[in-house]
């Protein structure tokens, strides 16, 4: 009952894809059909989740034996444990809202059915990823979400920027995939299995290499420092794509992978501190980048990246369950923030610059409300959704024996979260309107209102429900000094007030010369400037000049074919030229004849 209902809700998702075989998808109801299917799948998946919360029974089901090679058996198997059971309904709920939002956002797109099919395919691959019980199946989902993100980022394929961003996403993800493949190879080599439970049961020693591989994979997929630039670039895609892929589902896949592998990770201190530092750098760096951006979607993208860094920090302090809680709560408000920004962008005729907004609280009261609540939830204001995970994470980090530097970075990033959230609110919503006066603003579409409303309720209550209903897995720190309890709140309030004061103070000031700090933040720490110029240039000129021209067209051509033909040509010219020296020719003929005669006669 438990597992079959879960499978039913997963299988349900494939029905609209299947139906495209029979011409039904061509009519205009296909998007609605997809949306309804997802809502049914969500409701169906609630039943097994409830049963799971009630009984705490984890299951692994193996369905279809795919193949056996030597000692490795590969089958289609699903792991219905704590993580997948909680994440599936959350992801379905968020996707349901986003699909409804897309009905409004993409209504004028001629290929809206294809868009929905892509979104649905993405959702299916994501479900494969979270429920997979063996590494190969996980890899199918892992690559699947990557490719679907390529297709969805490049949705407006006529635009060069969209294509570049799509390619960039694939490139960074592929670098991460090297790590994944290495981990797969290592596990195959050392544990002779790809099944998760068998790997954990064998508990191999010296796990530095595979865990480094998995960390690299997570770095690529979850846009951690070093492989982060694709996430802000991915904002070239349509806003529903950003809301679904680049905030709530795909980008958390890396964190999810590390959570899946925590049984190995919790014994490896080296990898843990590496993870901690990586997360801390990411969360601070991307928060700094977010501070000075003017594109509303970019700010939210950087804030996503920063929150992903926070999740990685949580894994670094060995609290995978908290990281998972943050994934779930983050999905609600971050998807909603993207949808609110989509609503604003759509209403202002595709204007994304927050400097050209302002005063929207009059024109778009509902979007304003949602955006503010989302931002507050993001900063972890008490009793909104974000509070239940974020506050817990920072408290745990505060009270654990951990790297003080990483902790400090995280705290600063937390404070900056409040600062850039203030900036969005201040510039986009408050003050005087700065957009064109003839813009027709209308947010009274039921698709828009309902979808945001659903996530709005989620952003207020979901954290409470989730954290109250799941059984405690690790005992949280119950006692701590008051100042530690209040640290998270204090830094957040500090961020809010500072940002507000600074914004008010500098509102009418003109920036004469950009300071170097401003440049650093605005140009994303010079990272894209350097990394997207030098290595590709070096690489491409290497392939052109050395691989293609020098080696292929010159050396390899000259060494074998050309030199041989040259040699033949030279010798044949040398030999075959008639010079009329008939005596010499006869002489050589005579010598040959005599020699052969001698040889034949004297042969024994």
């Amino acid at each position: 009952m438990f597992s079959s209902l879960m499978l039913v809700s997963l299988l349900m998702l494939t029905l609209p894809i299947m139906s495209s075989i029979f011409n039904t998808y061509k009519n205009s109801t296909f998007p609605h059909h997809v949306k309804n299917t997802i809502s049914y799948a969500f409701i169906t998946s609630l039943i097994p989740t409830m049963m799971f919360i009630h009984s705490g029974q984890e299951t692994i089901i193996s369905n279809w034996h795919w193949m056996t090679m030597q000692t490795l058996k590969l089958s289609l198997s699903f792991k219905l444990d704590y993580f997948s059971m909680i994440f599936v309904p959350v992801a379905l709920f968020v996707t349901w809202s986003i699909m409804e939002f897309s009905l409004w956002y993409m209504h004028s797109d001629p290929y809206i059915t294809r868009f929905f099919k892509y979104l649905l395919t993405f959702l299916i691959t994501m479900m494969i990823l979270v429920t997979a019980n063996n590494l190969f199946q996980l890899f199918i989902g892992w690559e699947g979400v990557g490719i679907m993100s390529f297709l969805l980022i490049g949705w407006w394929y006529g635009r060069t920027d969209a294509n570049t961003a799509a390619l960039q996403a694939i490139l960074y993800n592929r670098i991460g995939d090297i790590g994944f493949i290495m981990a797969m190879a290592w596990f195959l080599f050392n544990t002779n299995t790809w099944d998760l439970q068998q790997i954990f049961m064998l508990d191999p020693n010296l796990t530095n290499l595979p865990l480094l591989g998995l960390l690299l994979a997570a770095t690529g997929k979850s846009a951690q420092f070093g492989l982060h630039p694709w996430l802000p670039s991915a904002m070239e895609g349509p806003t529903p794509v950003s809301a679904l892929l680049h905030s709530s589902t795909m980008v958390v896949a890396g964190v999810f992978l590390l959570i899946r592998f925590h049984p190995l990770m919790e014994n490896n201190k080296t990898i843990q501190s590496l993870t901690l530092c990586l997360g801390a750098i990411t969360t601070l760096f991307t928060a700094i980048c977010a501070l000075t951006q003017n594109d509303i979607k970019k700010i939210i993208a950087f804030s996503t990246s920063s929150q992903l860094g926070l999740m990685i920090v949580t894994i670094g302090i060995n609290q995978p369950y908290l990281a998972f809680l943050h994934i779930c709560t983050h999905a609600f408000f971050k998807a909603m923030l993207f949808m609110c920004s989509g609503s604003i962008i759509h209403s202002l005729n595709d204007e994304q610059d927050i400097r050209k907004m302002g005063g929207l609280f009059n024109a778009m009261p509902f979007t304003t409300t949602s955006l503010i609540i989302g931002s507050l939830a993001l900063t972890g204001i008490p009793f909104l959704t974000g509070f239940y995970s974020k506050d817990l994470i920072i408290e745990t980090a505060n009270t654990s024996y951990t790297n003080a530097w990483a902790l400090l970075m995280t705290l600063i990033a937390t404070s900056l979260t409040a600062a850039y959230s203030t900036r969005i609110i201040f510039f986009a919503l408050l003050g005087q309107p700065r957009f064109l006066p003839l813009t027709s603003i209308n947010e009274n579409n039921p698709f828009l209102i309902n979808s945001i409303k659903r996530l709005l309720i989620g952003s207020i209550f979901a954290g409470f429900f989730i954290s109250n209903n799941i059984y405690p897995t690790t005992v949280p720190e119950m006692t701590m000094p008051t100042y530690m309890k209040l640290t998270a709140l204090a830094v957040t309030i500090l961020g809010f007030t500072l940002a507000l004061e600074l914004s008010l103070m500098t509102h009418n000031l003109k920036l004469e010369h950009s300071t170097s700090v401003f440049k650093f933040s605005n140009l994303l720490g010079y990272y894209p400037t350097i990394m997207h110029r030098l290595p590709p240039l070096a690489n491409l000129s290497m392939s052109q000049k050395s691989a293609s021209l020098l080696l292929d067209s010159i050396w390899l051509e000259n060494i074998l074919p050309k030199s041989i033909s040259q040699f033949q040509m030279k010798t044949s010219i040398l030999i075959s030229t008639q010079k009329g020296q008939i005596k010499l020719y006869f002489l050589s003929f005579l010598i040959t004849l005599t020699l052969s005669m001698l040889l034949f006669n004297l042969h024994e």
Partner: protein
Amino acid sequence: MLKIIIPTIMLMPLTWLSKKNMIWINTTTYSLLISLISLSLLNQPSNNSLNFSLMFFSDPLSAPLLVLTTWLLPLMLMASQHHLSKEPLTRKKLYITMLTMLQTFLIMTFTATELISFYILFEATLVPTLIIITRWGNQTERLNAGLYFLFYTLMGSLPLLVALISIQNLTGSLNFLLIQYWNQALPDSWSNIFLWLACMMAFMVKMPLYGLHLWLPKAHVEAPIAGSMVLAAILLKLGGYGMLRITTMLNPQTSFMAYPFLMLSLWGMIMTSSICLRQTDLKSLIAYSSVSHMALVIVAVLIQTPWSYMGATALMIAHGLTSSMLFCLANSNYERTHSRTMILARGLQTLLPLMAAWWLLASLTNLALPPSINLIGELFVVMSSFSWSNITIILMGANITITALYSLYMLITTQRGKYTHHINSIKPSFTRENALMALHMTPLLLLSLNPKIILGFTY
């Protein structure tokens, strides 16, 4: 086996006796029927071979390649129709005859029991291919390409003849079925090193090994579509097949002789992939991508573990279908824009959306998206090379990344972006072309359901 070979030979009279409007449909249908007959060979009940006669046999290693060969003839015929539409009837018939002849030779090569008949047929395949390239290629460079093609492969394979004669003297038999029971190690001597080189170089040139690959991009670029298809899909696999067969008797030598070739392949894999990043010529890009994929096969064969053999076989089949499909797609672009330059075909997605879907699928299989059989092949090769030496993962990983990059670069340049004005009035895609792509794609997708049939010996 004769029930496949004789019908294939009979395709030639069929071609010549067919009426003018029936030559394509007749030959395509009958060759498709032949390929359906050959499908039964995929059912290999045991891990031993199916012996049909003294001359022919098939086992799990050769059966997938054989089926791929028979499968490809109807596809080549379908792909060539437009290209030959302006030719006189006799030449069309001659062209089909050449393809059929090549097919016959290939079938016999893959099923030959004796190494020497394998060798003769291996060489015989050169003749029709050469005629196809030099006679029906599009530009004058085709003659040069034909020269390169012929001389590289001939030079590589002549020492093999000598080596085979010497092996015949040594063992008294060149039978594949007997050789695998001949487990006597070759003595460690200079002459045996040369024996190893002579045996392997023929196939390495055919694969092609990096450094000896120059003939391949030239031949691929200049050949007509059917030539490119059969080159990429099957002729390169002859090399892999031969290596897999012959390494069994080169036993202790391979363990140390393999190093330079492994290094060259690993290095060449990166180099050729990087070349792909800078190609403007679509067919040349696909040709270099073939070199890079075949380097993986060479690595896998030289590592000599069961996993790597499985990976090599799977990768050969997967690459055969994928690269052939890419060549067909490139050809369909060429027939519309009359240029192989990628940038001239940009934005085609707007005009030919279904073709764009085929492009997408082909690019995705080329970059080995799971769970396609390309991934299974590549993954097995990566696994076995990782267990051979951990640091190869860096090169393999770099290659995986670059492969993804150039595949998608190809996709983006030809399909995405704004379309140019000179392609405003192009023909829509024909049902024939869509059927052609579907016939490439369906086996790829279906095989991922049960990859075991193309894994060769699963031990």
